[in-house]
């Protein structure tokens, strides 16, 4: 058996999600190789080579990967996929864009969002917004998998003794090109890697109130900020704040849900958090059904008090 992990990176460094994927690959067993498809990405490749469990890094360095376009990334994976039984990517926006392309080009099924490795052919994955867990066996010779990061502890970033091998970069597909990016700037920890998340819903009433009420609490706790779909749809915060079935899946040590009802689609994204706190004035809000500690209170009074006393 041999696993190929599709690295997620910004050329200079490896994205944290890749470390969880490497753990999943290690759980499957056999060699773990990492493919870095980037431009001037030798720094990302050497970072990958040092990750515990990685024996080889394949670096495809070239202009075609400058903007990490899915078409070129998938072509690169396929060009280097010959000797692998498992091809894995993170279940992130990048991984979800690339992996199914790879699977289709190889004429193999993909198993999305795995949360457990049973054996080399069999995996557990959530369906129906996490309301059921399916145990799925692949009958294909090659398994293409995306990995839910919260389900696998990150591999150590040091201790690996991988070698870096360069391969030819594929030609640009010519069918898509990068125009621009609008990156949300934040000094806070990344949502999917944060130990504490302060998350707000429609109960905040506006984007201004969201920031005014939640920012001091997040600052005090060193927390990341998240939101429900309702809050994102209403324009309180950018899309990348969304936690839920179709947004980000998080599992911090502490998740503080403020002014949110707890729709099943939202719960799907956070119910694996270690400790959940809910603050809502409606005692019947479904969020209290999953919260370890519920506080029925007006959030506009309770949250400032929490900030003052914590």
């Amino acid at each position, binding site marked *: 058996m041999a696993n190929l992990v599709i690295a997620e990176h910004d050329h200079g460094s490896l994205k944290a999600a890749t470390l969880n994927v490497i753990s999943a690959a290690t759980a499957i067993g056999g060699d773990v190789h990492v493919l870095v498809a980037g431009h001037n990405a030798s720094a990302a490749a050497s970072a990958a080579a040092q990750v515990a469990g990685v024996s080889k890094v394949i670096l495809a360095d070239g202009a075609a990967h400058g903007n990490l376009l899915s078409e070129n990334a998938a072509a690169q994976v396929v060009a280097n996929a010959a000797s692998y039984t498992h091809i894995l990517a993170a279940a992130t926006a*990048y991984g979800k864009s690339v992996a199914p392309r790879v699977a*289709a080009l190889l004429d193999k099924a993909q198993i999305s*969002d795995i949360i457990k490795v049973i054996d080399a052919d069999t995996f557990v994955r959530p369906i129906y917004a996490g309301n059921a867990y399916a145990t*799925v066996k692949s009958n294909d010779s090659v398994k293409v998998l995306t990995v839910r990061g919260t389900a696998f502890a990150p591999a150590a970033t040091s201790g690996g003794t991988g070698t870096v091998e360069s391969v030819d970069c594929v030609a640009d597909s010519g069918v898509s090109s990068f125009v*621009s990016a*609008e990156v949300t700037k934040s000094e806070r920890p990344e949502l999917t890697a944060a130990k504490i998340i302060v998350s707000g819903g429609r109960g905040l009433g506006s984007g201004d109130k969201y920031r005014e009420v939640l920012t001091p609490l997040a600052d005090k706790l060193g927390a990341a900020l998240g939101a429900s779909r309702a809050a994102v749809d209403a324009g309180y915060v*950018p899309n990348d704040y969304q936690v839920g079935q179709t947004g980000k899946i998080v599992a911090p040590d502490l998740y503080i849900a403020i002014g949110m009802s707890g729709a099943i689609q939202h719960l799907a994204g956070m119910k694996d958090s270690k400790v959940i706190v809910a603050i809502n004035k409606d005692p019947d809000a479904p969020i209290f059904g999953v919260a370890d500690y519920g506080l029925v209170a007006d959030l506009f009074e309770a949250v400032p008090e929490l900030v003052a006393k914590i």
Partner: protein
Amino acid sequence: MKVLVPVKRVVDYNVKVRVKSDNSGVDIANVKMSMNPFCEIAVEEAVRLKEKGVVTEIIAVSAGITQCQETLRNAMAIGADRAILIETDVDLQPLAVAKLLKAVVDKEQPRLVILGKQAIDDDANQTGQMLAALLGWGQATFASKVEVAGDVATVTREMDGGLETISLKLPAIITTDLRLNEPRYATLPNIMKAKKKELAIVKPADLGVDVAPRLTTLRVDEPPKRQGGVKVADVAALIDKLKNEAKVI
């Protein structure tokens, strides 16, 4: 310009499904079924492109059992011009659906295919990307804004760290995210009109596609339940619990 919009019939998003007691799957008998919300957004986007004069014809397509006709009628009530059902009782998996759609694309020659980014039943998030790969087309997943001018689609995508805009050479694939639009409600006159629109039925064999499943679901389980928590009296009690009981702050 022709647009193809694949749509999927799924358990309605308001339904909380239950796992069958024999662990063979989830119980969907007598459960409300609807069009997958992301597919609805895809239909709406196609209709808006038609209203802008960019698109001339919208073809809705679905693959699955006879009842998928309802989903297609719904798509036509929103504004699709005609529909194709690829009828089969086989448990269709994303790769098979992508192959079926490729066969329809080969026949209908649309310049754009707009799909939902994922279906809320199996949450796979694969079909659009697979179809793009099989066709050798460019793809823009998780679209929150679409502009089509001439032979180019400019698409803003919802990424993990913000937004990204890419440009696609047509023909191309777009998959929709939540913020792309708010689908309109089908009005009664449009629902009536949709009943008269053309709905063609084909079989996977007619399209020459092998839809045999590659994956076997061995069992389906309830996820571990969270223990019901406690309500605390006030902020001070909450802080005490977090510090001394949960020890998370």
